[in-house]
């Protein structure tokens, strides 16, 4: 069956991308899920492709459901949910000022939504990431922080402070590991993240008397 599917792909050649995607879906899912799941996911994928959303994550999710022995209706439901999340991520990133988010950014956005960020938080992070940071990266970091147990808003705040302070992408990528190191020492995820938040160093927030937080050069300083 699969060989036939691939052969059809070769033959069809210059057909529309939608058509190719459908064949690709069948080829990839054949033997892994039931026929009606294949058909339904083909339809979902076709719609997604037509809307400019990436199809690969949908295929992966269906394969995963099949491998886990999940009933057909739940596989379909999960694929639908993922397609909806990709769509939601796109709206959020568009609102953030990115008219054509990359497929990676959309996948990261969908991952962030599934990890527990809401659309507004995805939008806010997308906004603060522009123009210097790739939202595909920042969203992934924020999602992973949330997956570790850092409350979504707190993770967003931590990342915003890091981005506004001009910290490099590697520093952002290190955040989840740093949180885990803190957790291994006995902190909760939230506590570990709080310990990393450089917003604390700004001082202004904690100063009861509203003094300027930053060190003012004194006449004595060289």
């Amino acid at each position: 069956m699969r060989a036939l599917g691939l052969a059809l792909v070769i033959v069809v050649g210059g057909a529309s991308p939608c058509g190719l995607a459908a064949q690709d879906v069948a080829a990839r899912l054949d033997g892994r899920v039931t026929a009606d799941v294949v058909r339904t996911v083909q339809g979902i994928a076709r719609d997604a492709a037509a809307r400019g959303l990436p199809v690969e994550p949908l295929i992966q999710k269906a394969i995963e459901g099949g491998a886990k022995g999940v009933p057909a209706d739940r596989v379909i439901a999960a694929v639908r949910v993922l397609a909806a999340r990709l769509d939601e991520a796109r709206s959020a990133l568009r609102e953030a000022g990115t008219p054509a988010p990359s497929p990676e950014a959309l996948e990261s956005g969908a991952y962030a939504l599934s990890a527990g960020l809401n659309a507004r938080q995805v939008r806010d992070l997308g906004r603060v990431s522009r123009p210097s940071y790739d939202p595909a990266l920042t969203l992934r970091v924020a999602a992973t922080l949330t997956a570790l147990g850092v409350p979504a808003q707190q993770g967003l705040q931590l990342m915003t402070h890091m981005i506004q302070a001009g910290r490099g992408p590697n520093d952002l990528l290190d955040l989840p590991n740093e949180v885990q190191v803190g957790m291994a020492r006995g902190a909760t995820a939230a506590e570990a993240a709080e310990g990393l938040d450089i917003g604390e160093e700004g001082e202004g927030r904690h100063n009861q008397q509203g003094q300027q937080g930053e060190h003012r050069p004194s006449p004595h300083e060289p």
Partner: protein
Amino acid sequence: MTTYHPSVKRLLDGELRLGDLPPELRAEGEDARRLVAALDREPVTLSRAVDAQVMAAVRHHAKSPARRIWRWVAAPREVELRLRVRPWALWGGALAAAAGVTLLLTRAAAPVPSGAVATHVAARNVVFVRFVLYAPGAKRVTVAGTFNQWDQTAAPLVPAGTDGVWTTTLALPVGQHQYAFVVDGRRWVADPAAPAVDDGFGRRNSVVAVTTQGARTL
């Protein structure tokens, strides 16, 4: 705000003595020291009731069934996957010496392993990632994920030296992966040491990002 002279601050830090300060700063230095000297440094003794209260809580917690399950799941702390390892620590296999670090990474020139889906970007760099699970009493443990199409037979773990610890090392292409362990062919278990996301089917998947610097929690 008037600030102390930097030398006075170093005096307070203990790096300078009063005699080291220029004469015009000595008064300021003495003031500063007087301020800090006013600190109450008396040791604090807590009431003996603390002991009793702590032990009462401890006995209560020790009994709870949730704690027994937690201990099964949390025991892998000793085999934690996700400590970040500096790249320079990877070469030469010195990793294993570090207590508690079980993430083993080397860079290999090997091609993408067979079974990788053709639509993935072919990775020139492949990173070996070691997976570990503490599952005493299990008869079979495998790891399945996006890197092997969730095939629960493709990547079996083998018992490691320590009782109940299972391990395997896989060559993973660069990118973000989700995975879970499969115990005895029927129980899907997320990696307790990794961040977990909802898999959409009522369970949790673990996440790892493989980069050319190694695997990280992402």
